[in-house]
């Protein structure tokens, strides 16, 4: 899995301009500077509060969403880099078969503790299974190491990914 990370210029920003975004299958127009990070457009302008702010620097993964099926860190992705791409957030991820399986496994295994990182974890897990339907432990580690869980729910994250992949519920 490729993690798309686009560094934006932190101090320059343009005037608000109308931009069309495709989020969870719906086209939505926003009127904000093109440098505004996707995370804050989703949270403030479009009302998708599922993606979370953790670090603002692409280090914790709490803000993970999909851009054309790839996991990206929305806190460091300016919307002018999104273009025509299809964005999927935690609110829309269960619309796909893999997304539904992963979400169901997350509930079934009761993965969350505080829950703050889990939207990002699920988005990374779905992106992993979309590209690798039967990941090994080391595949899971490699794909999920960008998502910090401060509570340490990692065992259950592994279990849930395996359950969603249809494998054994092994540790």
């Amino acid at each position, binding site marked *: 899995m490729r993690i798309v990370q686009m560094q934006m210029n932190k101090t320059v920003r343009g005037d608000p301009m109308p931009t069309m975004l495709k989020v969870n299958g719906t086209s939505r127009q926003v009127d904000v500077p093109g440098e505004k990070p996707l995370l804050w457009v989703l949270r403030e302008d479009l009302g998708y*509060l599922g993606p979370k702010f953790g670090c603002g620097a692409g*280090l914790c993964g709490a803000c993970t969403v999909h851009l054309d099926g790839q996991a990206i860190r929305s806190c460091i992705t300016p919307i002018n880099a999104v273009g025509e791409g299809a964005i999927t957030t935690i609110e829309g991820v269960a619309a796909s078969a893999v997304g539904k399986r992963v979400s169901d496994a997350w509930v079934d295994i*009761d993965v969350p*503790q*505080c*829950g703050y990182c889990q939207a990002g974890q699920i988005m990374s897990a779905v992106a992993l299974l979309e590209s690798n339907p039967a990941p090994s432990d080391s595949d899971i580690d490699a794909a999920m190491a960008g998502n910090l869980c401060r509570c340490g729910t990692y065992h259950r994250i592994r279990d849930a990914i395996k359950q969603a992949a249809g494998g054994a519920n092994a*540790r």
Partner: protein
Amino acid sequence: MLADRRLALKAMLAAGGTLAFDIQIAGAQGAKPGGAASARINAYVAIAADNTVTITSKNPEIGQGVKAMLPMLIAEELDVAWGSVKVEQAVADQSRFGEQFAGGSMSTPMNWMPMRQAGATARAMIVAAAAKQWGVPAADITTSAGEVIHAASKRRAPYAALAAAAAKEAVPDVASLKLKDPASFTIIGKPVPGPDTPAIVAGKPLFGVDTVLPGMVHAALLTAPVRGATLKSHDAAKALALPGVRKVVPLRQLGHDDAPVDALAVMADSWWTASEARKLLDAQWDNGGREKHSDATFAAAAKAAFAGAPAASVRKEGDAAAALAKAAKVVSAEYSYPFLAHATLEPQNCTAQVKDGKAELWAPSQMPDEGKGMVAKALGVAPDAVTVNLTRIGGGFGRRLQSDFMVLVAMIAREVPGVPVKLILEREEDFRLDFFRPAGFHKFDAALDAQGKLTAFRTHLVTFGAKGQPGRGGELPNDLVPANLVPNADLGMTVLDSNVPLGWLRAPGSNALAYATQAFLDEVAAAAGKTLPAFMLDVLGEARAVVPPKIPGVPDIFQPPPFDTGRAAGVIREVMKNAAWQEKPAKGRGFGFYFSHLGYFAVVADVAEADGALRVTKMWVAGDIGSTVINPMNAEQQIRGSMIEGIGHVIGGLKVPVEGGQVQVANFDAYPLPRIDVVPPIEIAMVRTDNPPTGLGEPALPPVVAAVANAISSLTGKRVRSLPYQA
């Protein structure tokens, strides 16, 4: 009285005091109704027409699982099916709910009986109402899964049919309640998932940062890089020129009484805009000489302190100096550990609306009542004028026991009366404004007699605080194991001043003391020709309750709890058995034991080297938290989470360096918390003993730190006398 309570709370948060709490179950009066077409029976229970039961969870949920655990206790004695229960978060109102906080692993021991009694009270009122309606003795009525049953007349009715009448019944005396026999529990002890799990997985707004109110503005905060520095001057022109910026407000000496800060708050129509404007603030700070504080000066001060006697004595038993002088063997070593941050994944944040002498807050606080008082004081209003709604909390770990963010947002919101303001700290500010786990330096000496028996234990702790008093989590307890178990003990401490504010981090005190003492004792055990668990069993001796010396000025019920050597030995033996501990363990295996927050935990860790890095390959843990694990589904997570956090204290480089008065951590790249790829298999065993159930948020952590450090010592042949481990 209030001071007593605060002191008591502090004692409990630090280590877990002994307990004696009265239940006061408020009736339905003054409470919000339980929703449409439902009858509220008491502060905790409302029953709807369709027989669903809304149970109020009084304490803040930080991921420790109280939102399932507390309602489980109520539902059990109310005698309803868990599937019919909806859980609702209480507002902060201690007049109705008693203590409402998330800390000290206290929710279980403080509420095990009171919440069951709350459920039993509501059940008794429903039964009384049925008895009246049916004209039969209450004693002939039974209940099951939300139904009232009179077997003789074959009558049954759902609770819903009686709830309105039950609400008018007299609240029965607690002494008259008959609680269930644990053998008949149908909810307690069964795995129950978190009530919010489906909403979390669906990405629903639950957390403090998700608060959205009509007309709300967003705030970001700029504080000084050097904690405690005062604002000399600033130029807000560039920030104000950014479209969308509403206001820049200087805040002076606010937040927390112990560590007030100067700050500039930017209010804007978007948090991103506020955050961008924050970078444009031209602020000048007066460091007031605080640049002198650094790791190097702390280490030098500790070295100087070790050259002399401790500034204060915590415990003197027998004559440690004499015992050391005549010992067959003396083991001496120095240990140290760094400041640590809480680094909750949800940054500190809070939302407030202030108008006409009243304030309403939406607060992710672990101690909301204290925050409410702080806000009232800052605004100059009565506490009753402040309403605090509790949001779900994206990680606590003790950070949010300090409610500084509540004060900061309230004082920002005061500048825009009637307009709700949501303050979110940048990650950099979240680190700057943390209240850190104190660093510490230990000098240890231990005496062994010719038989390898521990005859004396002495330590000098150099810790941090103010005016000779250790700060939060920097105390040296007088019942430190093994000082409480040897004939000659000498515990002393010296307190260093710094500008680093201190706070309770998960298992405060214990998370550092367990490492230092158990790693040192691993050295002592080796000198005695034993492994640490075998040595610990010797030191523990026969099963008995060891009662700590009384702490002056602390009420009896909040004195530190007795230490049960039998329970300690029980978990040590259990983990030795499960890990197949041998007299000569393989290289890379380490052990740790600790008692904190009323829980006894022993851990074995295996460490190996792969690709030039150390990793924990397996861990075993045995714990004793009494007779009952209330929610095994969550208990497993609390233990694993503690153990993963414990690995992070040792391997990976977790520390908060201080240079020039500044903490040298601004984001997660410099604070490498454990990721999924470092997590080993963990085998958990609970030892059940006939003791009241106690909490699980913290006590599993401290021994892990020691076990991992000792495992590394075993692997490398070099003692890990300083954390984090460095090759």
